[in-house]
């Protein structure tokens, strides 16, 4: 059916999974506070959270299966939303699964951690759905406030507290930019709904409006901060480093996916006509993220920081998809974030196993000879790293993710050939540090005084096994994922009708036909 979102009941119905999750999370919060902190309680809340997430996932799949649509409104009812929801929920499931055992190992007894993850997830789902700047703002804040806390959840850890503080201060700072951007866009167009803004821009030929452009710029800055794209990335390594490892995984995957989802949706639905303005900016954001992330990652000794920089690189890749601004781009986006989430999760799961105290960094050197001690873990870690690298077969689905990304870049109306080349060239640098880990694991002996890796718990084991299996399976038979991501591409009808600004010379004008000769933007 097609929802009419102006009717409250239908709006509620369209928000079914979100409501399931939020109500469940509130109930669980009460339950969590009900009993004194204990390992047992922490585990049971965690298991309940997993149950809730599975239920939510069921609801999402149910909604997706129904294939509902909606007229224009504050939220979207489309495949893109459901797909992003699925990715986010998978990430949340993984986070809690890892966290339950991680908390036990680290002596964290507070059960609220899981509930906070649920709240953050709820915020993300709102983000995935939002088609109104107001809703999007709310989604961001619901998500962020929960994650601020999660980052510092390990109260015994000074690093965690520092991470939390940095994230909070800078996040709030960036929120200021984001919000001001929204205000100016609202000022220029008089609307907050994405479709409305788009049609007003086209109708009133607003592409020359300074207010709109500055607003758009501020919005870009705010979102770029949330997705940790250079040069607004600097918080990420510190926060990822200090936060409890499962939460780092959560931030690197779900937070990023949600923020990017709304980034992509806003740009695709609303600001297509302004590509002359944001094109070069996003182009440079992408390039800077890839270059800075890769180059700095190369000099990292701490694996969490290395993965943090690597996530900055992936932000750069995903910016390429936002920049591609096409249906194929959004489909590739879904594919990419799924692959990226699985790989990141796996990698952090292994790191979380290697971790002793929270303030004790896990160094790449600690992986030396892991193959001899724990061959399974080493092989799994290699799969994740190769997936992040985008290597075929051994990196499974990661290869097709990168493949899809390049396809989207090359088929975009905007000439992104050079950017595609930069993507692949910088990924050679990334091979340098991903392989560094593989190399110490396989090619160096295990040190005599190396810390013993704890026995993998059943939940972590499940996370590891599932991610490896999925990565590898879809790396050989990607058709289900491609079909799914194509299904979840933002539909064409969201695009603004033809008619646009004159193309200024020197901007990213869509060429008549793609040219193999790469030209500078």
């Amino acid at each position, binding site marked *: 059916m097609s929802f009419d979102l102006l009717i409250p009941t239908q709006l509620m119905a369209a928000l079914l999974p979100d409501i399931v999750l939020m109500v469940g999370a509130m109930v669980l919060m009460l339950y969590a506070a009900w009993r004194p902190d204990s390992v047992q309680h922490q585990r049971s809340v965690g298991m309940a959270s997993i149950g809730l997430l599975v239920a939510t996932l069921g609801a999402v799949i149910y909604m997706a299966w129904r294939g509902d649509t909606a007229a224009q409104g504050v939220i979207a009812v489309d495949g893109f939303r459901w797909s992003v929801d699925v990715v986010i929920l998978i990430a949340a499931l993984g986070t809690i699964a890892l966290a339950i055992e991680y908390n036990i190992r680290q002596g964290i007894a507070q059960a609220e951690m899981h509930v906070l993850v649920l709240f953050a997830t709820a915020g993300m789902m709102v983000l995935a759905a939002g088609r109104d700047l*107001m809703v999007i703002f709310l989604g961001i804040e619901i998500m962020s406030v929960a994650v601020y*806390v999660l980052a510092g959840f390990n109260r015994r850890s*000074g*690093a965690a507290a520092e991470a939390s*503080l940095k994230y*909070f*201060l800078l996040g709030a700072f960036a*929120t200021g930019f984001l919000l*001001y951007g929204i205000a100016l866009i609202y000022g220029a167009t008089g609307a907050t709904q994405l479709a409305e803004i788009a049609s007003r821009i086209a109708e009133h030929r607003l592409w020359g409006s300074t207010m709109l452009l500055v607003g758009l710029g501020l919005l870009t800055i705010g979102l770029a901060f949330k997705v940790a794209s250079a040069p607004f990335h600097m918080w990420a390594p510190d926060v990822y480093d200090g936060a409890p490892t499962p939460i780092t995984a959560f931030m690197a995957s779900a937070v990023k996916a949600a923020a990017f989802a709304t980034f992509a949706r806003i740009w695709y639905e609303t600001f297509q006509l302004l590509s002359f303005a944001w094109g070069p900016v996003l182009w440079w954001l992408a390039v800077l993220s890839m270059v800075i992330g890769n180059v700095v990652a190369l000099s990292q000794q701490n694996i969490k920081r290395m993965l943090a920089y690597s996530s900055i690189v992936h932000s750069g890749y995903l910016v390429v998809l936002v920049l591609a601004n096409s249906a194929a781009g959004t489909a590739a986006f879904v594919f990419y974030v799924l692959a990226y989430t699985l790989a990141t999760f796996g990698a952090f799961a292994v790191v979380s196993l290697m971790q002793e105290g929270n303030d004790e960094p896990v160094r790449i050197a600690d992986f030396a000879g892991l193959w001899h001690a724990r061959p399974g873990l080493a092989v799994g870690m290699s799969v994740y790293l190769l997936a992040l690298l985008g290597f075929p077969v051994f990196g499974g689905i990661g290869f097709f993710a990168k493949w899809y990304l390049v396809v989207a870049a090359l088929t975009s109306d905007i000439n992104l050939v050079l950017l595609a080349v930069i993507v692949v060239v910088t990924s050679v640098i990334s091979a340098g540090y991903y392989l560094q880990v593989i190399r110490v694991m396989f090619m160096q002996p295990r040190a005599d005084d190396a810390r013993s890796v704890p026995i993998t718990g059943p939940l972590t084991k499940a996370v590891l096994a599932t991610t490896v299996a999925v990565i590898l399976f879809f790396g050989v038979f990607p058709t289900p994922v491609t079909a799914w991501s194509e299904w979840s591409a933002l539909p064409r009808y969201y695009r603004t009708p033809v008619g646009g600004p004159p193309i200024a010379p020197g901007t990213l004008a869509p060429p008549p036909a793609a040219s193999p000769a790469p030209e500078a933007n």
Partner: protein
Amino acid sequence: MVAESLALSAALFTIGVIGVLTRRNAIILFMCVELMLNAVNLSFVALSTLYGAAGQVFVLFVITVAAAEAAVGLAIVIAIFRHRQSVNLDDINLLKG
């Protein structure tokens, strides 16, 4: 009137940004951020004279969010104070590189 309000809003926002850049105390920094948010609120209110109630609704949302942030933020500051006995941001650089 709208234009003046917007200008004032921009000025306040800038002051907030400058505050963030120059101050080193976590609490003051956070206050500067609050100033930025409220500057934006001013814009919304001013603009709502042009476009109707949506802007004012937005302001209410922002105030709520800011309150939540304040609660969380102060808790975080307390947590860091427990560890470092300081809220000077220059002392807080355990994580770097």
